[in-house]
């Protein structure tokens, strides 16, 4: 390089200073060289400084070696490598960021990151789904405004607690926008341990809570059922005695009309009590099914004739559309009880009407028989539809019904591997549908399978 620059610079200088002789040319070349070496040294030092090391000392590397050693080339190569490394790292970072974002959005809980002023920095898709009603951007807005729908931070705010005390806070149950949440806030710290914000995690426990409540209710009901069955059993004997002695008294001749009337009331009321108890026992006792081949149409006729007096006295017309259906394997007594209960329900629904109509249909379909029983009564209000098979649910005045008839019926049908459901429209009447399998197969646990 030294010789090259000499060669290169001489003609240039020469062309610029034509009138000067060779001594001046010589001096000019030396000047240029000095300037060039000074420049190279400066640039090398600049690069060395960037690399974080010391500049070259004057005695270090003379002009010839500086060119031969090529420090600029070495550092340039290193820079190339640094750049490649950075590019690779950037790519990895981008990828990691994409993965994190995907996880952030796909996770089943709501996550939100807020700064010390409670302004939202980031919020995942689930959080938006759960707590953001509007479509505006949430980033930059206060979390209490977006998530809690209020203008200022609430008195009890887990995020504030986390910022002030630098600790995780867990709220077991918070209701926000009609849903129930579990909220956990944890501090977000920078490299030096200073709190820069809060990570808020919201878990929607609404459904879990509902299930828990339903379970609790069912447990309560079961406990009440057991208690009721116990009491019912104990009441059976005294009631039997009351009825027995009252009937005995009635048979004695020397009673006035007044006494006879009152005795009849005692018998009637005690029998009503017995009926309620029978229902309760029926409901709580797991009676095994006594299966035999039964003609459903005959069963319906039997139940209708046993109830003939109530139906006739209520002025209800009964229409039967009974198909020729195969015999089914059922517990006759229990299935007839189902017909009795649903029919009684229809009769009671038609009470006080002059144009009461009950329609009973039977049909065979594949390996099942279908029985439907319709009335043109007032129908069941929508809010009661899901409750009518619940034990003790009744709309009748106290003393008129136990609320057990339909729940017992539902249990019996289920035990046979069949199904029962209701169709009703307010003002238009009600239809109960019952489907029974032709062959009821008893599973090992005693429950029927179809």
């Amino acid at each position, binding site marked *: 390089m030294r010789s090259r620059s000499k060669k290169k610079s001489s003609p240039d200088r020469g062309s610029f200073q034509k009138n000067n002789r060779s001594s001046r040319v010589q001096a000019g070349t030396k000047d240029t060289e000095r300037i060039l070496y000074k420049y190279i040294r400066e640039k090398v030092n600049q690069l*060395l400084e960037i*690399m*974080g*090391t*010391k500049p070259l000392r004057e005695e270090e590397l003379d002009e010839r070696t500086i060119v031969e050693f090529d420090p600029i080339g070495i550092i340039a190569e*290193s820079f190339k*490598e640094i750049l490649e490394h950075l590019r690779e790292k950037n790519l990895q970072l981008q990828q990691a960021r994409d993965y994190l974002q995907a996880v952030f959005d796909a996770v089943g809980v709501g996550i939100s990151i807020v700064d010390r002023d409670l302004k939202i920095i980031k919020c995942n898709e689930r959080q938006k789904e759960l707590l953001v009603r509007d479509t505006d951007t949430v980033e930059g807005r206060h979390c209490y405004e977006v998530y809690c729908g209020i203008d200022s931070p609430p008195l009890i705010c887990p995020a504030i607690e986390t910022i002030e005390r630098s600790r995780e806070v867990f709220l077991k149950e918070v209701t926000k926008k009609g849903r129930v949440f579990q909220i956990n806030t944890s501090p977000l710290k920078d490299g030096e341990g200073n709190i820069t914000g809060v990570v808020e995690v919201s878990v929607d426990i609404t459904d879990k809570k509902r299930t828990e409540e339903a379970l609790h209710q069912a447990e309560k009901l079961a406990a009440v059922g057991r208690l009721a069955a116990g009491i019912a059993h104990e009441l059976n004997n005294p009631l039997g005695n009351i009825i027995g002695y009252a009937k005995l008294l009635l048979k004695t001749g020397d009673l006035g009309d007044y006494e006879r009337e009152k005795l009849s009331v005692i018998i009637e009321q005690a029998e009503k009590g017995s009926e309620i108890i029978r229902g309760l026992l029926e409901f709580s006792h797991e009676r095994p099914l006594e299966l035999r081949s039964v003609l459903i149409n005959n069963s319906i006729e039997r139940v209708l004739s046993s109830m003939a007096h109530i139906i006739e006295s209520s002025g209800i017309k009964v229409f039967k559309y009974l198909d020729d259906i195969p015999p089914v394997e059922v517990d006759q007594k229990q299935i007839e009880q189902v017909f009795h209960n649903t029919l009684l329900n229809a009769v009671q629904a038609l009470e006080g009407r002059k144009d009461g109509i009950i329609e009973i249909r039977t049909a065979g379909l594949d390996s099942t028989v279908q029985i439907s029983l319709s009335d043109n009564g007032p129908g069941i209000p929508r809010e009661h539809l899901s409750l009518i098979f619940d034990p003790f649910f009744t709309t009748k005045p106290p003393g008129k019904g136990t609320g057990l008839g339909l729940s017992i019926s539902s249990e019996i049908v289920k035990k046979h591997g069949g199904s029962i459901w209701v169709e009703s429209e307010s003002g238009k009447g009600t239809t109960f549908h019952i489907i029974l399998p032709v062959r009821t197969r008893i599973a090992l646990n005693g429950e029927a399978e179809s």
Partner: protein
Amino acid sequence: MDNLVLDIRGQICPACLLISLKELNNNRSRIKNGEASLVVLTDHRDATRTIPNAVTAMGYSVNVEKREGYYEITIKKEK
């Protein structure tokens, strides 16, 4: 894996760094592939800062160990 040993004891900065970088550049592909590592022996304390700083920025992993009267700087492919 080969250990390429570069003994620059007696050299001081910035020569230490420049010589090490030159050696690294010359054996770049072998070191990047994990076939070889460069072991720099130096007795200049500054070099235990400047060399690791530069080579980590270039994507190598580096380990400095103190030996009797000198340092051993091992430069390898990044884990």
